[in-house]
């Protein structure tokens, strides 16, 4: 449906444009002086002042891998996060868990698990899709590096950031 908006009829003073310029400058200068005289403060001086304490629990920072309270890595390398990841930041190479290891019945784990943080868009789809509750977006938002390689979080780094998470569903229990 189209709607025709009538062009407003302007008074000659409005058509002159100059008053509008001064009107505009009044607004900008008001803000200018308010900030200049420190009557108003909006910006937080980031590295010195931080908002961290106020971050909500659902804050989407860097994606990480977590262990459960038994020290088992929860990820089984199903690669669903790799599949869902919109910017294709995740690369997983799975491997089989040797039969003499403690969690051999899980059979599969990631040999390498890499998240390219230069690509990650912090959308949280990996966390949402994970069938094992193994990947969580934590509150780390300072992800920096001097090279592209440094920006790739490998499995070790992901577990460092993710640590252990309690209170999750234990799928690999005796009942199974």
């Amino acid at each position, binding site marked *: 449906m189209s709607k025709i908006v009538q062009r407003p009829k302007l008074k000659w003073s409005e058509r002159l444009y100059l008053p509008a310029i001064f009107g505009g400058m009044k607004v900008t200068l008001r803000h200018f002086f308010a900030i200049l005289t420190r009557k108003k403060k909006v910006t937080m001086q980031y590295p010195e002042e931080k908002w961290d304490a106020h971050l909500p629990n659902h804050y989407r920072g860097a994606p990480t891998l977590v262990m459960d309270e038994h020290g088992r890595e929860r990820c*089984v*390398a*199903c*690669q*669903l996060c*790799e*599949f869902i990841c919109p910017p294709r930041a995740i690369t997983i190479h*799975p*491997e*089989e868990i040797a*039969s003499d290891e403690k969690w051999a*019945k*899980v*059979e*599969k784990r990631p040999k390498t698990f890499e998240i390219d943080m230069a690509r990650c868009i912090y959308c949280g789809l990996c966390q949402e899709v994970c*069938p*094992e509750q193994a990947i969580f977006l934590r509150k780390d938002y300072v992800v920096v590096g001097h090279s592209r390689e440094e920006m790739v979080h490998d499995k070790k780094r992901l577990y460092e950031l993710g640590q252990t998470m309690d209170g999750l569903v234990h*799928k690999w229990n*005796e*009942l*199974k």
Partner: protein
Amino acid sequence: MSEPTTSDLVDVQIDGVWHQFPKGTRIIEACRQVGVEVPHYCYHPKLSSPGNCRMCLVQMGTPPRTAPGAEPTAPDETGHLPISWSPRPIIACANTVSPNLGIRTKGDLVDDCRKGVLEFLLANHPLDCPICDKAGECGLQEYSMEHGVGQSTFRERKVKKPKNVDVGPRIRLDDERCIMCSRCIRFVDEIVDDPVLGFTDRGSYTTLMVYPGRELANNYSLNTVDICPVGALTSNDFRFQMRVWFMRETKTIDTNCATGCNITVYARENKIYRVMPRRNNEVNSDWMPDSHRLSFHWIDGEDRLSDPMLKAEGGFRTANWIEVIKAAAKRLSGLSGDQIAIVASARMTNEELYVVSKLAKQLGSELLATVPRQGEPDGYLISADRNPNTNGARLILGEKAVSGGLDRVKSAIQQGQIKALLVFQEDLIADTGLDGVSLKKLDFLLVAHSCANETTAIADIAVPAACWAEVSGTMINGTGRLQRLNKALEGPGQTLPVWEIARDLLRALGSDDNCQSVTEIFRHLADDVAEFKGVAWGQIGDQGMPLIETGEIIPLLERERERKAAGIIVG
């Protein structure tokens, strides 16, 4: 095949619509033919139907039985009798159609049956889809989401069964995942005559096992992985390598023997992860040998040639195509036709062979050969001829090149008549008994091959040629069937298909041939070679087309046809 006469046909109502089918058609096939899908696990058209999974339950109805003395019910205006529906479902896979039969594949009864069957299956099936290789193409996953409740409602302790069992050199068995459809048992028994699988502990603890002291080791064992509807049988080669949803499928054909099994290549990011047989009832049915299935790993191997190499002082140096072709043309232009020989390969496509034959004409060379490869037929699918396209080579290069051509080339080389030799896709030293000493008598040796080998090592120019997975083209199999290859991968580095290499060489030698695509070459080929007359590229399709009569038969197909004629299988 003759059209069935009207008397052979029976009227069947499927989901409210009347159709006609030949007598003896299984209900499940009748439904499939009219586009109604009946979910099933144990049924497989190439195997007998034990009817043990109960997944294909449908509701059935027959005309009302006339009571003694009563008037028979009159047909309605369409000529059909009313149907009185049975309250008891029947399996669609083992029952055949009968006159005036009614089938319902929807409705409360059928839905409840399916839901119930799936609930039973999920009672003990582990929900380990995240680690299961079958996830994404698993029958249980699909039907659970489509017809079941989508999860296990069983809260008690599940039955524990053996996991990760080594049943054979190439296969791992997870008994907890098995849903007892028995497809694998029937396959090894009926198709490959190696009945090593069976159920034990029947009841709640039914377990699939290998006969003690035996193993599932026959050359067709991996087909059981294909037909397993769940992830109970997994291939060691593919296990945990790649999730199925990442891979791109390319329909092509196997090039390990003259049978030319139809296959699907599964690849991701230019790497093949698995090869699976593709149904073609004229070539390989639904099966393929393990040896052929697993022979793709060399494609991303270390010894692939990736750049054209020019012989330089103390070895080779990498070059580009322009200088290599220029150098080759310069070396060839001074020679007369009888000083040049060409060894092509019956592993090349018809199109590649055709451009090579043109090159031979341009050079005036009469000495053309292919390398024969004979082996023992296995009595199932593997042909004695291990070259996939001997028939194509015969038609395009001539009978002389295929039989005895190699011996003539060899003796000519040894006598020193030959100054220059062009070799396409063959390793002469490893496969023909020619030795480096006699090859070094040549002034000029050009080798186009996918891999570095002993022959490329002594070549003056070695160039990288695309392998079977990297080209499109056609081949003629042992039975004379023209089949198509489709390109699944990009070759490494500067790799080019043989037809492009030969064409560039042709042009550098002064020909104005400028074919730009395989389809274009095929058009010229169809004009040029009598047997191809009138065949168009688009006509070949995914299933191929018979081109010539060779009289060769595929034993496995013959046996399947017998079983089909006997009514044991649907075929």
